[in-house]
């Protein structure tokens, strides 16, 4: 049991049930205050479980981020895995000048951009509108909605997608984004504005064509 726990970073909760770190956070409010720095230190000291937990804190956000840029879940998973590997390799050189999250997302952005540049652009979704007529939360309706969002994102430049996702979904500040990307804040604001206007324009067009984006 102990080896399993160590291997997968599982914690034992009341009743002896094994849960993952992310579940643990959901179970306990205190889990949200996990000390990222402490995990980082423990990880650097060779605590594999700590490293696993540290990466787990950002896994889904990274996945959403990469998915938004690359457009496909499977590509995004590859990108996240590569991000983790690059981060682990460079862990010793991480000086903590920025937050671990910022550093990690910067790596992820580079991975995604390099992946995009090495491959032909993803095929855009069709522009032909066929929105669901029902607002019932059926799997297909939700899937279609997600596809439409991805379709809208696919119209943006990768850097704009990255900024928009970090801003809107991850709720980063402009400053944080600028730090992560090593851009000026002005540049981030400019790209953010362009991205938001493009997305708003897409929504308008969809509405005019009778869709319900």
């Amino acid at each position, binding site marked *: 049991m102990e080896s399993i726990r160590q291997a997968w970073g599982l914690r034992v909760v009341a009743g002896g049930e094994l849960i*993952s770190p992310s579940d643990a956070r959901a179970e306990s409010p205190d889990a949200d205050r996990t000390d990222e720095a402490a995990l980082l230190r423990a990880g650097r000291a060779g605590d594999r479980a700590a490293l696993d937990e540290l990466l787990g804190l950002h896994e889904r956000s990274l996945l959403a981020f990469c998915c938004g840029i690359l457009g496909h879940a499977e590509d995004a998973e590859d990108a996240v*895995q590569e991000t983790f590997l690059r981060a682990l*390799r460079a862990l010793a050189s991480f000086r903590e000048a920025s937050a671990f999250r910022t550093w990690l997302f910067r790596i992820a952005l580079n991975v995604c951009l390099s992946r995009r540049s090495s491959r032909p652009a993803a095929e855009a979704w069709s522009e032909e509108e066929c929105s669901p*007529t029902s607002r019932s939360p059926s*799997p297909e309706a939700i899937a279609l909605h997600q596809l439409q969002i991805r379709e809208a994102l696919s119209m943006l430049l990768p850097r704009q997608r990255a900024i928009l996702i970090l801003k809107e979904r991850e709720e980063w500040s402009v400053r944080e984004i600028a730090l992560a990307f090593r851009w000026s804040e002005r540049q981030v604001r400019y790209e953010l504005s362009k991205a938001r206007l493009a997305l708003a324009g897409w929504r308008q067009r969809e509405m005019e064509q009778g869709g319900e984006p």
Partner: protein
Amino acid sequence: MTCRHTRALLSDHRESLLPGHAAQKLTAHLAECADCRRVREEMTAAGAALRDLAAPLPSRDLRSQALTAWSLEEVRGSRQRDVGGGEAPASWRLALGLVVVVSLVLSWSQLSQRERLLPGSAGTSPDQGLNPLATRTNPAEAGSRRGAGMAPSAGQPEAGGVVMRRQGVQQAQRALGALGRTAVYPSFFYEAPRAVGSGAGGEGRGASPAGLHVDNFHAVGSSPLFASMRGKTPPDAPVWTAATPDEWAVLEQRVRRTMPVGDDFVQVPFPRLAAADERQIATALQNYRREAAVVDARLAREVTVRQKAIALSDLCERLRNETGIHLAAGPSVADEKVTLFCQKQPLRDVMRQLSRPFGYTWLRSGSSSPSGAKASGGTPPPHLPPDEWAALEERLRRTIPGREAGGRGYRYELVQDLKSQLLEEELRNRDRNEALVALDAEIERYRPYLGLSPDEALARLKGAAPAERKALEQLSGLGWGPLQLYYRLSPQDQSALRAGQELRFSAEPDQRFPRPLPSNVARGVLESLRDARIMRLADGSFGVTTDRENLDARPPAAVPEARALVTLKIRQSELGQFTLAGESGFFARSKPDGGGGTGKSGDDGPLAVGSSPTVRRPDNETANASLARDPALRAHISIQPQSSRGGVRREASGVGKYEPAGPTPHASRRPASRAPSPDSSDKVTTADVLEALHEATGMPIAADYYTRLYPVPSVTERNQPLFDALNRLSDTMRLRWRRDGGWLQFRSTTFYDDRLKEVPNRLLQRWAAARRQAGMLALDELVEIARLPDAQLDGADMAEGAKQLFGLEEWELPRNWALRRHLRYLGELTPEQRQAAAGPAGLPFGHMSLAQQQRFLAIALEWDEKPLQSLDELEGAVLRVDYSQLGAFEWRVPGAGADWLQWMMPTGSGRRAPRPPVRAPTRAEALQAARRLDPQLAQGMLQVARRLQPQLTAADMRPHEAQIVPTELNLTFLYVPGASHARQIRRFSFDNQSAYGTW
């Protein structure tokens, strides 16, 4: 502030990054400008939509794999540093080695434990580990392995190494390369799990054919899926609702359009979503994309096919045997016949030709081979050398960038989807309506002559022009009554007629003939029955004879007791063809108060036949006008097809089943003058003609095949431009041709009807073999044939083909509309009962089951006016079946109207019993057998015969050579409703389809 300026600042405004004065100006502008307000609202909504973007759940263990790979790199780096430095003492190297081994063992142990942790894990047996397929039963594990870079043995430490898909293949190779591992799995080796039901309770969450993978490992974490499986529904988990078809259709349409399929003639099943979990959706779509992108390298294999009228199931089997690729025809198309000629064409093209032109689809199932023998190779298909296989794969990768080669485990099944079936149904309906309209137009040609009586029409017929002869022939005979009534039908009757109902009219309406016949029409009907004569018999009853010289007999119009009868029916004589049929007749009641009587009815052939005009005129020249100037179609050709009936001849000699004739030696580009003149008695199939065309042009040909025979001269071309020859031949054979790349495609213009008319080869061949063995089709085989759908039995072309190509001379017996019903009734009997019915004594009524007895009575007493009072009346009731073939001799009982005596004999005191016909292989034997008849029986027969021909003497009844006649192909059903003469016998036979009476 302008709108443009405002919009540029909207984003900063949302972030509260604008200076105060700028923010005020912007707010003021927004208050005035509806357009900019709308942009701001859309911007806000777009942000909200992005926040709604579900965070996907990873489908595999990204962190652990990355950590393991990193650990291995660290260890390896240390080892290299250590070895590379050359300074470490041997003891250190040993220690490091131990660390590596321990690390690897620990890593392997963790993997094993993980696998054991997973619900439904396939375990980690080394044997299973050697075969990746053995472990794919766990979708979670399959998910974790699906990328690449997996070592072939799951029991190895590095099996838990970095797993990356797509580009991950190379990376994984690099990652593993240091460990000396080169084997890489294809990224699509696993087979997606099939749908596993649905339900929020979690058991068997929905999945799809394309594979929604329930990742059990991640379910351990925070997955809503796992939570729901444990009975806990997370607050943000989507509500489980039924999918609406519209939404799904939209999604599928969208994805299919944007994800072209690599092998474009293959239908890749689209996933069916059963949950709205983001990861599942993404996985499903990703799986579809991966499957869609696959181009099966094996299909580049070149094949040569020369097949005429072959069933798709047989063709697929031959191709499967030749290429090693699993091809099969699904039940919906297995019996469809095609003609295919091609020389060294890629299998892909052949498959395309077998699907697209006919509206069929190749379904691909299974997955590429899991064999991890090498990165992109695997086991080449049988009959294909490995080097050729490798070259094919390489060529494919070069020529189709971005595509993934593979598919060694794929299976292909040819099917017709529901959409295509419905389309055919639609075409049939359209054709049916056009045929009815055509029938109506055909009937209209009688209108100018409706004022004529039958005698007037007969008089006018003598000097009639050819154009009006056919109409006058009907109106001067038995068609007069039905045609008169057709034009007097009420809309309700017309509707009933079109619906297939038979309308029966009588001068004295009763239950059987409920519609009244106007008196003027009744007179005309009796007048039209010129060949019938009625005579009063000695016992006071009426008899019917066709002997016009009999002075005691009078025409029906001169017999006051004769009542006119008329029937009218529109029958679908074949699919796509309607026939208006009608009979005229009479019934003469022997006694005014009811009781017995006699009657006769008949027709002079169909009154009108209507078929769709578009079917009759394919007009290929117009349809293919764009190809008229195609240089490839301007070459002059001569073709003279050779009859496939050679196959029948071989078959008759016992060589084997029917096989179409071999390549036509005469088909060539040589001048027609050198070709031998065709035998006008020969008939050829469309496949024969297309074979000759292939021989003459060398062009690959794909065509559907439906049995139709054409005289050779009508499909012979001499030194004609190919384009013109194609148009003419296709028009003659009711085909539509077109060009598809280098291929010539042919399809019947009435394929939607022809498909239903065509009898499968497997049945025809079986019956042909049985006939070869026994020299004739047995009664049981006739029963089996009668079970075919009406569409197949009604088809005139099919019937001709069955006889001409397969030698099934008896085909007309079950095809006969009157006999078919009775053969099907025989099919309800047991083999023993059938044998008894075919015996001399027949099948007694008492030996039938209740249901069989009910059917028997429904037929036997159908026209009987007297209801059955007691079952005692059925004493001696039997069903008798007499099946006669050509090639023997039989004794015909003399005397007009005595044909009942062929099967029945009087037994005295108003009773009767079945008797076997007198038949023998030779004339002499038949005569001897007839003369051996019991003198008492001969005397009884004489009495019966003399009822209609009183002048007959005992000498006339003595069998002599002139009464011995060759047997004919015939099938007779006798429904004898008792030994007593009180009820009449019903007889149905091929030569005299329906009769009712006794002596």
